C-alpha cells in the first residue's frame, strides 16, 4: 500500500511515487479537506432538518477524493458516483449544485462539460462505462499522447468496492484494457457496500482486479491525501501519454452510515470506526503542518472561519433551491418534444388550472 503521509503526520517516501510538493501546497490540500468535510457535515444537518431528502456522506473519504480530484488537470474529465462531493469541490462545482438531486428539486441538472465533472450516477457502476466511452472519444479527438500538456486528456472514473462486482465495471475494464484507453479507475474501497463488507465482493484485494484485464493496479492509503494525489497523478499522466489505464484502490473507510437512511449499528461494530478514526485523513495533515511546516499562526483559524462561511452558503443556498414548477415535468424528456407528450402537457396544465380554480 502506497503511503506518503502516515497517520501520525510523518512524510514518507515511496520509490515509485516521488512527490515534490511544497508546504503551501499541502496547506492548500488541508484547506480542501476541511472545507469538504464541512460541506458534508452541513448537508447531513440539512437532511435532518428536512431540507434534503437524503445525503450520502463522504466522511472519512476526504483524502481519497481531494487527492484524486487535485490530480486532475483542467481538461481531464471525471465521472463520480453519488458520493464524490470532494471531487466536485476540486472541480470548482458549487456545493449547492450537488444539493438539488438530494433535495429532490432536480435530478442533477448540471452540465458535465462546464467543469468536466459528470452528473452523479446512482446506478452502481454504470458511469465506469461512460468514462471509458468518453476516453474513446478523447482518443478519437487526438487528445492523448501528443506531448502537449494542455491538450493531452485523461478520464477519471470513480466507483466503490461494492461496484467492483458489477458486470458494467468489469466490462469497462475489458474495454479500457483491450483499447489501451486513457482512463483511470479510482475505487474508493471504504470497506462497505451498505451492509456488506468488502469480503462479500472479493477475497483478494481489489487493486489486483485489473491485472487480468491487462493493466496495472495499485493500492494507496485512501486516508493519505498525498499518497492519493501522487498515485492518481501518475496514473493520469500515464493515461494522457497513451500508456493506458490504471486501477487505483484507495483503501479507506466510510465513517458514517451509507446514507442518512442507513443504520450501521445493525451490521458493524462501532469499534471499527474508532480504529479508523486514528487514521483520520485530516488529522494527519494537521499534525504534519503543525509540526513541520511554516504556516501562518492564524492558518487554522482562518480555515475554520472560511468553513463557517461556506457552511452558511450551503445552508442558506439550500433553502433557496426552489421546487420546480409542475409544468416542468415535461421538459427535457426529449430534445424535440413529440406531439403526444405536448398533448399530455396541455391536459396536465388544464387539469392544474381546473384544480386550482
Amino acid at each position: 500500500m502506497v503511503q506518503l503521509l502516515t497517520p501520525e503526520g510523518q512524510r514518507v517516501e515511496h520509490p515509485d511515487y516521488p512527490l515534490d510538493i511544497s508546504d503551501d501546497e499541502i496547506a492548500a490540500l488541508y484547506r480542501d479537506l476541511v472545507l469538504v468535510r464541512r460541506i458534508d457535515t452541513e448537508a447531513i444537518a440539512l437532511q435532518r432538518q428536512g431540507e434534503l431528502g437524503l445525503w450520502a456522506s463522504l466522511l472519512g473519504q476526504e483524502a481519497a477524493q481531494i487527492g484524486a480530484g487535485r490530480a486532475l488537470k483542467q481538461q481531464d474529465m471525471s465521472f463520480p458516483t453519488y458520493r464524490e462531493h470532494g471531487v466536485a469541490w476540486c472541480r470548482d462545482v458549487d456545493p449547492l449544485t450537488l444539493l438539488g438531486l438530494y433535495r429532490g428539486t432536480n435530478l442533477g441538472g448540471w452540465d458535465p462539460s462546464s467543469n468536466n465533472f459528470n452528473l452523479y450516477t446512482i446506478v452502481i457502476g454504470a458511469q465506469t462505462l461512460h468514462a471509458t466511452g468518453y476516453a474513446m472519444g478523447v482518443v478519437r479527438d487526438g487528445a492523448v499522447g501528443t506531448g502537449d500538456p494542455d491538450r493531452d486528456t485523461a478520464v477519471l472514473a470513480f466507483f466503490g468496492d461494492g461496484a467492483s462486482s458489477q458486470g458494467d465495471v468489469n466490462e469497462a475494464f475489458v474495454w479500457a484494457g483491450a483499447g489501451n484507453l486513457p482512463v483511470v479507475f479510482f475505487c474508493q474501497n471504504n470497506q462497505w457496500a451498505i451492509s456488506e463488507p468488502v469480503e462479500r465482493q472479493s477475497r483478494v484485494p481489489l487493486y489486483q482486479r485489473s491485472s487480468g484485464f491487462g493493466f496495472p493496479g495499485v493500492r494507496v492509503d485512501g486516508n493519505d491525501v498525498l499518497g492519493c494525489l501522487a498515485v492518481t497523478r501518475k496514473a493520469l499522466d500515464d493515461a494522457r501519454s497513451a500508456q493506458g489505464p490504471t486501477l487505483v484502490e484507495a483503501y479507506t473507510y466510510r465513517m458514517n452510515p451509507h446514507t442518512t437512511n442507513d443504520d450501521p449499528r445493525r451490521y458493524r461494530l462501532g469499534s471499527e470506526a474508532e480504529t479508523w478514526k486514528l487514521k483520520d485523513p485530516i488529522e494527519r495533515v494537521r499534525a504534519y503542518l503543525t509540526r513541520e511546516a511554516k504556516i501562518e499562526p492564524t492558518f487554522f483559524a482562518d480555515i475554520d472561519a472560511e468553513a463557517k462561511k461556506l457552511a452558511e452558503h450551503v445552508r442558506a443556498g439550500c433553502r433557496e433551491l426552489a421546487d420546480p414548477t409542475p409544468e416542468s415535468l415535461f421538459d427535457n424528456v426529449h430534445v424535440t418534444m413529440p406531439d403526444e407528450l405536448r398533448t399530455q402537457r396541455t391536459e396536465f396544465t388544464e387539469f392544474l388550472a381546473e384544480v386550482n380554480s
Partner: protein
Amino acid sequence: MAKALNDGLRKALEDDPKVVIMGEDVGKLGGVFRITDGLQKDFGEDRVIDTPLAESGIIGTAVGLAIRGYRPVCEIQFDGFVFPAFDQIVSQVAKFHNRSAGLVKMPITIRIPFGGGIGAVEHHSESIETYFAHTAGLKVVSCSNPSDAYWMIQEAVADDDPVIFCEPKRLYHAAKAEIDEAPTPLYQARVVRPGRDVTVVAYGPTVSTALESANVAAEDGIELEVIDLRSMSPLDMPTVLESVRRTGRLIVVHEAPHSFGVGAEVAARVMEAAFYSLEAPVLRVTGYDTPYPPSRLEHEWLPNLDRLLDTVDKILEY
C-alpha cells in the same frame, strides 16, 4: 405490510427447505426495507444470502440454484436496479422451462419494491411491471395490503413458475391490517369495493388511491367499483368484465407511464370482450410519458385523488 411480508417469507422458509432468499443486504441488515429482518439470524447464512453487488449475478445464480432443485427468492433492492438483471430474467428465467420442453422448472420469485411516493432519488421509484407482463413465461403480481402481502408472497414462492412480485414500497409502513384466514388464489382479481357507476381497476400502490377516490365520489352520489387486479399477468379478465358489463365504464389506474402500460392492455381486452357494454372509452390515470420526476414533483406526476376524480367526471360525461 413489511411485517406481513416478513412473516410470509418466514413461513415460506419454514415450509420448504429448498427455499433460499438472496439479494443485496438481505442478511445482516434485513434488507434496506427490513423485509427480511431476522431471517438470516434464524435460518442461517446458507438460506438467507448476502450476495455480491450485481443483479445479473443474483438472478443468474438463482437460475442455477433452480436447476439444482432450489427455490430461490431474490430481492432486487429497488425497482430501478432490476435492469442489469433484465437479460437473465427475460432470456433465462422466463424461457428456461419452455426451452427444456417442460423438464426443468424455474420456481423463482423476484421481489421488487416498486413505485414512487417515498421522496427518493432517481431510479428508486420506477414502475417496472409492464416490461415483465409483456414477457411470455413470467407471471407478475402485486399486493396492495398486508393480508395479501402475507399470503401472496407464500403463494408466489410455492408456485412452480417464475413470479415477479412487485411490492408497493410506499405501503411498507402503512397501517397494519388483519390477515385473512385463508389466501385468495394468487392470479385472481378482487372487487375491493362494490359500486354501480364506474369500474376502477388498480393494483399495488394505486388501490388505496382508488379506494380514497371512491369514498369522495360516494359523497357526490357516484359509486365507484374498485377492483384490485392483484395479478397483472395473467389478467383475471372475468372479474373485470363482469364489473364493466354492469357499470359500462372503466378507468385503469397505475403509476407506470401512460403509454404501452397495463392500462392499455386492460382497455384493449375490455373493448374486445365487452364492446357493446361500454358506454364510454376506457380511460387511464397513470404516470406521464416522462422519466420519473425529482421527488418534489412526484405527487404531481403520480395518479392522485384529484386526477382520478377528474377522470371520473370525464367518463361520466359520455
